[in-house]
């Protein structure tokens, strides 16, 4: 008898077979986050990103137009370029120096006459194109050169994501981080969208927002969530914001959507963040965080810090104290909500292999979890044909 975790078999969270099918049917068939627009600032710059089974790179041509190609030399399949870099007019594979122009055309094959005495048709050996598009200041790639439109993919959920204009904000480099969680990617998503846990796991960390008044729902496979500031925080919000506003008044609250698949955003009055979830294995997931803040002077930041100091000086604290603390680096005593989440995900994953595991009923605030499972099952079914 198959052990179930709500709508999915438990095995979906632990087996290599499920992981492989998700890579093929979900992560190789959807728009994949690739970075911020400013990551490719001028002609010649490129970045590459893994999108499911495909490695895709984006490069800007001299016409400032972005192009995307599969990062595969047409000769023996070697990956052409490394993660990030800059070129002038051409991309050369390190293996045999086959060289492509920025339109993907194969322009040079070394020792062509000697190595290919019967000739070689370079015009049939151009790089395979992929698609790149931009939404809310973020780059997205799709393995299919003629994919469904990105505007349509995010069009319906877009109005629920807050009035932020990320392209007008600046990155806060210190907030950029990348780490691994020893859990299946779906566990990480479920933690992100679990409304029930906010008041409990994060009882001493995220309490400036009123979780009881959260509004959340779905647009197709995309989840959206908003909650207002608590009365205490909101009563003097302009004074209490830790840094300058990134959205105009009277907009308030925290928008924390999870776009499909695994593209988390977190936006509030004073910042805009991405939380990109990449499955690395059945039990291993990579997270990339980046953060954007208001494009104003250091003096504005200083003033806001002073004005909000009174609110934040005593804010927050560890979940466990005293004898409950297991060790010096106990995440439950960290007072850091990210450490709390990582801990919860990894502790849950550990139990999934146990034959005694039996999942209890989903709470109202956990309805996003069953909805997410449904979205995955439907997406895979639609793409299995």
């Amino acid at each position, binding site marked *: 008898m198959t052990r179930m975790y709500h709508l999915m078999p438990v095995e979906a969270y632990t087996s290599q077979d499920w992981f492989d099918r998700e890579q093929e049917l979900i992560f190789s068939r959807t728009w994949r986050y690739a970075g911020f627009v400013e990551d490719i600032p001028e002609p010649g710059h490129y970045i590459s990103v893994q999108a499911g089974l495909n490695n895709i790179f984006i490069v800007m041509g*001299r*016409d400032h137009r972005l192009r995307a190609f599969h990062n595969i030399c047409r000769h023996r399949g070697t990956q052409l370029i490394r993660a990030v870099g800059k070129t002038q007019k051409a991309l050369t594979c390190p293996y045999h120096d086959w060289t492509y122009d920025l*339109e993907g055309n194969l322009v040079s094959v070394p020792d062509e006459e000697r190595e290919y005495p019967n000739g070689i048709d370079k015009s049939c050996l151009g790089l395979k194109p992929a698609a790149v598009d*931009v939404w809310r200041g973020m780059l997205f790639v799709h393995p299919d050169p003629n994919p469904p439109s990105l505007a349509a993919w995010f069009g319906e959920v877009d109005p629920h994501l807050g009035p932020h204009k990320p392209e007008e904000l600046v990155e806060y480099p210190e907030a950029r981080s990348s780490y691994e969680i020893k859990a299946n990617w779906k566990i990480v998503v479920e933690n992100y969208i679990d409304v029930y846990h906010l008041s409990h796991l994060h009882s001493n960390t995220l309490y400036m927002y009123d979780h009881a008044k959260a509004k959340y729902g779905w647009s197709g496979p995309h989840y959206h969530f908003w909650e207002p500031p608590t009365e205490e925080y909101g009563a003097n919000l302009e004074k209490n914001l830790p840094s300058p506003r990134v959205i105009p008044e009277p907009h308030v609250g925290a928008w924390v959507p999870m776009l499909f698949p695994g593209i988390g955003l977190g936006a509030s009055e004073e910042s805009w963040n991405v939380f990109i979830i990449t499955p690395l294995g059945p039990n291993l997931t990579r997270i990339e965080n980046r953060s954007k803040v208001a494009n104003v002077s250091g003096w504005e930041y200083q003033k806001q810090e002073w004005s909000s100091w009174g609110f934040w000086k005593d804010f927050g604290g560890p979940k466990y104290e005293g004898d409950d603390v297991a060790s010096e680096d106990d995440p439950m005593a960290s007072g850091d909500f990210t450490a709390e989440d990582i801990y919860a995900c990894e502790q849950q994953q550990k139990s999934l292999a146990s034959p005694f595991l039996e999942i209890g009923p989903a709470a109202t605030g956990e309805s996003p979890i069953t909805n997410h499972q449904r979205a995955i099952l439907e997406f895979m079914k639609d793409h299995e044909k």
Partner: protein
Amino acid sequence: MPQSFHPLTVADIRSEIDGSATSITFSVPPHLASEFTWRPGQHLSLKLQVNGEEQRRSYTISNPPGAPLRITVKRVKKGCVSNFVADTLKVGDQLEVMAPKGRFVLDPQALGHRTHYFFAAGSGITPIFSMVNAVLADEPYAVAHLVYGNVEAGDILFEAELTELLERYGDRLTVRHVLSAPSMWSWFTPWRKGRVDAEAIQAAITETPPVAQDVHYWICGPGSMNQDVRQALNGLDVPNSRIHSESFGGEGAQDTSVSGVASQVTVKLLGQTQTVAVAAGQTLLEAMRASGLRPPFSCQSGVCGACIARTSQGKVHMRSRVALEDGDISKGYVLTCQSVPTAEKMTLTFEA
């Protein structure tokens, strides 16, 4: 095949840029409404009597689809039709008009996240104006950048309308005026002085770079402008597949440097095949009509595209090729009214 003219009534005549151009709006009766729908960039062929002589001309529709059917005619020195239209034509007059045609078209994509660069000069703005409007109205995720060249500020067509568009769509539209000889007495400050050349193009693209990968370049201007802009874009590695152009000659701007040779032409028309002898210096259309064939044609000036056919053998010289895009020409399409054979044997097929 509907190649016929229909009488349309002139509903409005408006003088533009101090009488240097004239906009004419037609009223389209309900039973012709479907035939007279158009795609942004298409043009109308007119047949009119001027001083007892029949004249045919094609003019670009300067309104976007859905708006009233309007053409804008720039006055040409000694041009018999453009002056007639400006000075003699009245509201309520009827003109013979053929349904909209043309292959230089921008079809809006409701979900297209595209960046369009428009390069226009002089009255080359007419199709571009229609396209810009269509992008702003019907392509909500797209942006448009217009670079518009003129001699001086007084020559700028649709200046008021462009300003209105900027006020309404300022986040999706930029307009850059380039003036080659700005008047010292004008208050108008152009973006640049000079021509719409490689430097101006590079500057425009650098100042307002494309949003992502789906970028299109639209060119319409007189003389060598199309070729110059295309070369400048090619110099930035823009592939030809993304460049769309229509040249815009003044009346009578034809290349008659090649006289052509006598040729035997196999013509496939409406399922029939016939051989036509073309004399040296004769156009394909003239020869076909002289031998009793009835191929489609309209303006006889290379503008409307009604006489288009495809060659599968043999080459021609085209005196004018306004109605064709470069891509059409590489596929073998010719305008029979403008083509003299340069090969002694040819095969010509009318596809529609």
